[in-house]
């Protein structure tokens, strides 16, 4: 029986009974829905009648238990080939049965139901279950975001034709009207002809998030220009062979172009950039939003123009960076980096975060007693080399003198009124930003050792703050579910990124400064366009809170680490996971890519630093030495595990010369 027949059937029915209002409404509905893909079950009038007739009598709480139990045993006894597809149905049915029971006020039955069947889903959905377990009254369902969104949205489940038929037949045969109702109401089947899908698709399908998969897919179709900025220092080094760079200045770009075809274009870009910088205006979006993906030089990465006016880099700093780049150690799977470990001792459990400056000479620690402490490693070295540590400290350095006359080995920065949760150094190490539970972000000068600005804007603790790769701009992430973009010279945020369904836990800039990525407690990572403030990617796949993010230097990939120890490598342009990296067994606190992007390091609460080979899979197209044909399916290799001495690793940083710095706290009970 096809759809038209059903419509006719209903129409005649309504006419016969004289339901004119209903008939009108029905007509409208039919018009509206004519485009939408109708679901197969609705086209079955017998079934619809069955539902209609029985849905009212389905109030008996015992029925849920009984019917779900039946469905469960049937599913577990189904054919192996179709089993995994059918199993996917169980979880949404389970949670909706539970919430139905709660909504109808059968709290006791709901709890009994939940406890009876929760074991089945414990492995995949432990965290969700923990949340839902607390939902004990209808008002909780309204109040709790997670439950609410679950009720609002439908779950998409992919299934092959046969499994779907099997399921429906079973439900009809056993007259499980309650479950059938739930299946119809809450699940959106995407029935595909042919063989059942492979089990490996599971992860993708099963994750239940607030936004429906559709919305995520739609967002992920947007264009992302992940290419690097034009005319980076690396390029200039390559072009000029290191010698020409002496005469280079950011303003003098027009002079130095010698070989390039696109010399003019570059010059224009440069001029435009500088003029905007002077006027301190936001750049008109038209100019660069449609930045063409230019493939100029050896690295295949397309080039894009900055959407933000970027600060001018002083010539001498540029010199030192170029010097660093020339001396960079090339890392690969065969030549691993050296790791310098900074261990905090005697912190008495109060260190919340640490940060290492670009050259590794400064280390900042944020403490739960609201203080920020900065260690100068160069001074530390001198001091320790004298026979009695702490005895000789340069008396001319004022800040080392504490208020009570005792001598300290660090600079104490006080100003926050709550635990400091994050700190970040500006690219030139002249500023530090810190974020705290007191809802503020503070800017400190490492030269003056003083607080310069206090940025107020967030309403709740600020979990993370990160400087952009070029300085001046920074992004913050907060418990108030927003991420914000700031510039150093304004006390108001420039952009507010709203969309996450729970706390934004971490934030990271894209290498070209046009995007930021945020990781959240809602288990998704999002990519935002800095200029427009729009969400351009949603990355779904993690099973727990996201704790750390890192962007590859070529701008193509992003890595995210979560609470369970899983690291996922994402392709920014496709929004897909390249491969999950398993290995850590506790929180991944920090991730870092090496400067040329061939290695990634991860630091975890399990007191290890792991090194991963990024090239073997992601660059499969350019480097075929691994013998891999595609660049999507390759597994990233774990190259090396470096255990520390009971020191969970809080932060990692590759210096420009590819020396890896790690920082952590010596903790006895780990």
């Amino acid at each position, binding site marked *: 029986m096809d759809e038209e027949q059903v419509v006719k059937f209903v129409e005649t029915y309504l006419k016969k009974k004289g339901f004119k209002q209903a008939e009108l409404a029905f007509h409208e509905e039919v018009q509206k829905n004519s485009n939408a893909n109708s679901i197969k079950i609705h086209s079955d009038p017998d079934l619809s009648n069955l539902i209609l007739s029985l849905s009212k009598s389905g109030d008996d709480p015992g029925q849920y238990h009984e019917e779900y139990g039946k469905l469960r045993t049937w599913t577990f006894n189904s054919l192996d080939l179709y089993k995994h597809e059918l199993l996917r149905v169980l979880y949404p049915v389970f949670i909706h049965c539970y919430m139905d029971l709660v909504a109808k006020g059968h*709290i006791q039955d709901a709890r009994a139901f939940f406890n009876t069947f929760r074991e089945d889903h414990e492995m995949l959905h432990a965290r969700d279950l923990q949340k839902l377990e607390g939902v004990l009254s209808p008002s909780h369902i309204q109040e709790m975001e997670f439950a609410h969104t679950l009720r609002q949205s439908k779950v998409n489940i992919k299934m092959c034709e046969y499994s779907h038929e099997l399921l429906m037949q079973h439900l009809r045969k056993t007259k499980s009207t309650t479950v059938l109702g739930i299946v119809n109401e809450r699940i959106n089947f995407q029935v595909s002809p042919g063989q059942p899908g492979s089990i490996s698709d599971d992860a993708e399908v099963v994750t239940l998030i607030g936004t429906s998969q559709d919305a995520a897919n739609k967002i992920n179709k947007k264009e992302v220009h992940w290419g690097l900025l034009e005319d980076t220092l690396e390029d200039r080094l390559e072009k000029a062979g290191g010698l020409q760079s002496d005469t280079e200045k950011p303003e003098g770009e027009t002079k130095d172009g010698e070989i390039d075809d696109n010399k003019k274009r570059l010059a224009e870009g440069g001029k435009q950039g500088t003029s905007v910088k002077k006027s301190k205006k936001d750049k008109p979006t038209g100019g660069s939003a449609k930045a063409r993906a230019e493939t100029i030089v050896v690295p295949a990465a397309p080039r894009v123009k900055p959407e933000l006016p970027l600060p001018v880099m002083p010539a001498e700093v540029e010199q030192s960076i170029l010097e660093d780049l020339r001396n960079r150690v090339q890392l690969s799977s065969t030549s691993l980096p050296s790791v310098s470990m900074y*261990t905090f001792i005697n912190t*008495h459990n109060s260190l919340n975060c640490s940060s290492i400056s670009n050259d590794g000479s400064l280390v900042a620690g944020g403490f739960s007693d609201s203080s920020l402490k900065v260690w100068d490693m160069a001074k530390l070295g001198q001091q320790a080399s004298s026979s009695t540590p702490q005895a000789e400290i340069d008396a001319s350095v004022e800040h080392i003198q504490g208020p009570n006359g005792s001598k300290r080995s*660090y600079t104490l920065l006080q100003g926050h009124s709550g635990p400091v949760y994050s700190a970040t150094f500006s690219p030139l190490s002249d500023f530090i930003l810190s974020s705290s539970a007191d809802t503020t972000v503070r800017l400190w000068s490492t030269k003056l050792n003083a607080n310069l600005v206090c940025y107020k804007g967030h309403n709740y603790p600020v979990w993370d703050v990160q400087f952009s790769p070029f300085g001046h701009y920074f992004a913050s992430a907060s418990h108030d579910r927003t991420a914000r973009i700031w510039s150093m010279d304004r006390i108001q945020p420039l952009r507010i990124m709203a969309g996450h369904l729970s706390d934004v836990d971490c934030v990271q800039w894209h290498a070209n400064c046009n995007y930021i990525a945020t990781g959240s407690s809602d288990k998704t990572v999002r990519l935002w366009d800095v200029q427009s403030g729009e969400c351009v990617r949603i990355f779904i796949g993690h099973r727990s809170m996201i704790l750390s993010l890192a962007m590859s230097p070529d701008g193509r990939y992003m890595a995210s680490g979560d609470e369970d120890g899983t690291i996922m490598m994402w392709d920014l342009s496709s929004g897909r996971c390249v491969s999950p990296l398993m290995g850590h067994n506790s929180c991944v606190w920090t991730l870092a890519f090496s400067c040329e992007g061939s290695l990634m390091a991860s630091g975890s609460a399990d007191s290890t630093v792991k090194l991963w080979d990024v090239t073997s899979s992601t660059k499969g197209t350019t480097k075929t030495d691994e013998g891999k044909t595609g660049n999507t399916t390759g597994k990233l290799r774990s190259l*090396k595990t*470096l255990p520390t001495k009971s020191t969970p690793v809080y932060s990692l940083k590759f210096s420009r010369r590819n020396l890896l710095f790690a920082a952590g706290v010596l903790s006895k009970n780990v």
Partner: protein
Amino acid sequence: MSIVPKETIEVIAQSIGISNLSSDAALALAPDVEYRLREIIQESIKSMRHSRRTTITADDVDAALTLRNVEPVYGFASGGPLRFKRAIGHKDLFYIDDKDVDFKDVIEAPLPKAPLDASLVCHWLAIDGVQPAIPENAPLQVIAPPSEGKNFEPKNELLPVDIKLPVKHVLSRELQLYFDKITELTLRRSDSPLFKQALVSLATDSGLHPLVPYFICFIKDEVSRGLQDFSLLFALMRVVSSLLQNRHINIQLYLHDLMPSVVTCLVARRLGNRLADNHWELRNYTANLVASICKRFGHVYNELQTRVTKTLINALLDPKKSLTQHYGAIQGLAALGSNVVRLLLLSNLEPYMRLLEPDMLLEKQKNEMKRHEAWRVYGALLCAAGQSVYERLKLFPTLPSIPPHTVWRTNHKVFTGRPSNIQDKRKETTEIEEQPQAKKIRSTDGPVDMAMQIVTTGEPLNYANAGPSTTIQQEKNGGESGQKDRRDEGDRRALKKSAIVDLVWKDDLNSGRLLVSLFDLFGEGTLSFIPGPEMSLFL
């Protein structure tokens, strides 16, 4: 329904002054309480994660409460995870052990030491992907055989400073500090708990290999210099012992340097300069150390044990050497195992006993110190020989478990049945009763008597039991002779006894040998029934 029972709600309501809470209200509140609890816990976990911790603390809960605009709970802030105690009789009920603190005590107590300030230390976690074996790094799972190149520290760029001798390679500053610390502890504060920690560190740290030659050198120097200083010697031996325990260092390369120092501590004429110094204990300790070295490296250096035993037996058989040296030698030999004792010690026993005997007797040896030493030596001999025979007998299949039991039992019985025994046979009864201190001797007399009787009954096989029993006796004897206030009278009496014991002992040895041959002849059948009836016979 809710994990919070209705009763809990009622109790809480009462505790805050609401006495007339209806049970319906409590029922309705319970699920909400649970929901709020879960909410707080969820927020606390967020706070915990952002503080980079994996254990939740009271501070996290406070932070969560603040987030929800609730007044935090005061009085639980501890900075660390709380210690919970399990309530007795309940499986899953925990509480915080919160002691009442008297205000006065707190005020009057001296200010506690200020906690150490946070600081930062730096080391290499890896050099080109390879982890250097330094103490700051976690012990490696698989220790690669130490090649010469690896021993050297990677931190060459950090000021190279030589420690003592002109050295060729460079030690890292950390290792130098470590070495200085350890040596200082050994020299001056060997009784502090810190020294114990240091020993543990020596025994477990993986990165000490570069320091081993320095330690060996240090031990050598200090032993030769500090023979007068008993505590120093003991501390040094403990350092040696710790180094031997460390699996990450390859000490066998340095054994030739180490052994002389250790053997010195075993058979030196004088160890320590005061009377109170218990150099016997040091000798015992060192004897075990020597034995463990021989056991561990014996298969690598074949001549190791032979050289050690040669040194020891020379020390023992040289009548010019002092008794303390003899003692050390005996202990050393004894620790090397029963075979060594049997082969080397027992064969020389008779001539040696003849030498020793005069020193033990009050009449011949007037110097009490000397006599005491002689007794010590004698005790050690007894112990060694007894052990040896016992071990020997244990090898026989039927005996292994019986002897210890029977001996203990008979020993006990003899002790209780002692008075009659004494009255029958001993004239010294009165003497014993006069001296309560001699009680221990009395107890040891039992087995002696027993041994005597057995000898007289002409049942040599029973010496299977006599071996261990004399061991027991010796132990008591040894403990006793350590007492400074031991009376002369007791001494004299013991001497008389010992003459008898001595006799018995020699017989014992012979019979031990006899036993072996007898056993070979008669087989196992004869053994099993003998102890029981014999015991009852003389009891």
